[in-house]
């Protein structure tokens, strides 16, 4: 099993946000998580990637069968966990090329491999840029600096394509994208998808799931997964909205 989350509880500043969440993902699967705003989807992504300040008070996260709770964020990344950020961060003065090369070589160092040859690296950049249809000039610019919303999201997928993760988490990568950009993002995911990796696609709308076909859809509400199903569940949600979720919890 690629990812196995058992009874996970996560607190921020002492406030419990995730309240006993279970989720397992096998290699070759795409899982979608849907749910209203503020329900803890990004918190889940932060907990899996090891962000500081997200305290795991109970439960377990197993990645390829090993507990990763003690691993640093960079170790998790180098072991193949990738997060496409809901809000990508700007790093002024650091070119995308430099950033990517540093990241690629960090991973290679972690795997005891020598740094990648410049030529090989640039070739790979070219190839992956085509995949996500990003502007050639973009890689000379500073990381996310002055990028439009769509460019930022495409840039996340570009990085994912470069780093070839085993587990990719996409946190609302579709939000704010027009239909063309959405197709590009979906295309990126579909090209990368294989029997050796898994995806966790966090989304608000079922729209993305027309292009990335999930094997499983989970509905998250108030820190828990309250319903799981197949692709049909996404359509159902689209029709009914999230209001019905609140009812059983009302009282």
């Amino acid at each position: 099993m690629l990812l196995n989350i058992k009874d996970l509880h996560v607190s921020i500043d002492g406030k419990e946000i995730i309240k006993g969440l279970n989720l397992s993902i096998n290699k070759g699967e795409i899982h979608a998580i849907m749910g209203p705003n503020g329900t803890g989807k990004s918190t889940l992504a932060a907990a899996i990637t090891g962000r500081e300040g997200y305290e795991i008070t109970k439960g377990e996260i197993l990645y390829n069968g090993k507990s990763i709770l003690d691993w640093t964020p960079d170790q998790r990344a180098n072991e193949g966990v990738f997060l496409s950020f809901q809000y990508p961060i700007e790093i002024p003065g650091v070119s995308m090329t430099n950033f990517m090369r540093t990241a690629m070589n960090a991973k290679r160092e972690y795997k005891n491999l020598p740094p990648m040859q410049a030529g090989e690296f640039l070739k790979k950049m070219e190839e992956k840029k085509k995949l996500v249809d990003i502007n050639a000039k973009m890689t000379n610019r500073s990381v996310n600096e002055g990028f439009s919303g769509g460019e930022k999201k495409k840039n996340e997928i570009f990085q994912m394509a470069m780093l070839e993760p085993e587990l990719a988490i996409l946190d609302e990568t579709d939000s704010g994208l027009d239909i063309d950009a959405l197709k590009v993002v979906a295309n990126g995911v579909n090209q990368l998808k294989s029997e050796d990796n898994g995806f966790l696609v966090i989304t608000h709308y079922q729209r993305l799931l027309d292009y990335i076909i999930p094997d499983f859809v989970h509905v998250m509400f108030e820190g828990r997964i309250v319903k799981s199903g197949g692709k049909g569940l996404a359509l159902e949600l689209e029709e009914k909205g999230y209001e019905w979720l609140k009812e059983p919890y009302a009282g």
Partner: protein
Amino acid sequence: MSDKKKENTALEEVTSGEYKYGFVTNIDSDQAPKGLSEDIIRYISEKKDEPDWLLEFRLKAYRHWLTMDEPSWAHISHPPINFQNIIYYSAPKQKKKLNSLDEVDPELLQTFDKLGISLEEQKHLAGVAVDAVIDSVSVKTTFQETLKKHDIIFCSFSEAVKNHPDLVKKYLGSVVPYTDNYFAALNSAVFSDGSFCYIPKGVRCPIELSTYFRINAANTGQFERTLIIADDESYVSYLEGCTAPMRDENQLHAAIVELIAHDNAEIKYSTVQNWYPGDKEGKGGIYNFVTKRGLCKGHHSKISWTQVETGSAITWKYPSCILRGDYSVGEFYSVAVTNNYQQADTGTKMLHIGKNTTSTIISKGISAGRSNNSYRGLVRVAKNAKNARNFSQCDSLLLGDKCGAHTFPYIKTGNPTAIVEHEATTSKISDDQLFYCQQRGIDMEKSIGLIVNGYAKEVLNKLPMEFAVEAQKLLAITLEGSVG
């Protein structure tokens, strides 16, 4: 007589007495006794076989120094310096040759490795005897030949005094007079050696001049003197220092650098300063009190200072430009990093005197640990300096919450046509940025290095290519262990 003067005269009497006594026994040795007096200065001058005018220059400087007080306005603090406890002259000695790198401090070697300095180079820097003819020797020869072809003079200061006395006499102290400040007066009295460079009319120096390649550069000591003259229509790029960590037993360093650019001439002066900053508690580092100033003497002349300051326990340094020629241009690009208990008070002065003069100041301060980093800048526009323009950008980056960043911009405009712009920002490395990098597999320290280098990019880009690469690594190394 003021109390201060009385005290100084008394001090002088006492010390010169002591000195005379010690002198007899020391006359044949290669080292002056501790302390400072007129006799010590005569001794230095005699040892160096200097002409009378230079001895006079030294003595005047010394007498002036006695009347001065150590400045206390900088945003730094240190225990008082005992100037009588310093040896002001010792003959250039070969460093003790070591037989192999095994004899070198492993920590130093680690740093060399991180900087990517080649093994041969490491040996050279650490003072290990190298038996094979290493590259740098042949490089040096080609280097000297190229200079000769263009009639460029590049030699030690002492050699210049001997071989080009007229040039030295004409320009020495013309930009930084010995009356300028306390440490300038001290340097003028006791300077040991340094570099001299003259670029003749119309010559574009085809290579970067670096002290590293200068023959006889060994052991210039703690009171260094540099004089660079670019004659009409000439160009030179000069590199000072090196990214390898420099250790020195002398705690106090007080250098002077004077630059003179004639009509249409350009001087680009780049420094990477990496003196020993002291240990993590701040013990034992170098005090670096430097006076650097360039005179844009001719019309359309240009002087640019680029500095990367990472070392020293205390840095006190304001590379400046006097824009006397019409249409002259002054530039200052600086990255100053402080960590642990380091203190840096650095900045620049741009004095607009000629008409249509322009200056640009880009300063990036980075503080970590418990360090203090101050920018102090003065932009002054003289009454007749029509159409002067200045743009200043002073940014501070803080790592952690125990360090300090301070900005002291002074602007004095005496002409209504002047346009002076000043921008300042203070920021912190954000957790978001760090996490973003880490999520891509880059560890915490490398992430900090990456972000800091990005922050300093504008300045690093001004450095000559090879220097820039080393400087980037140096920034990252300086900040190791500063977070987490």
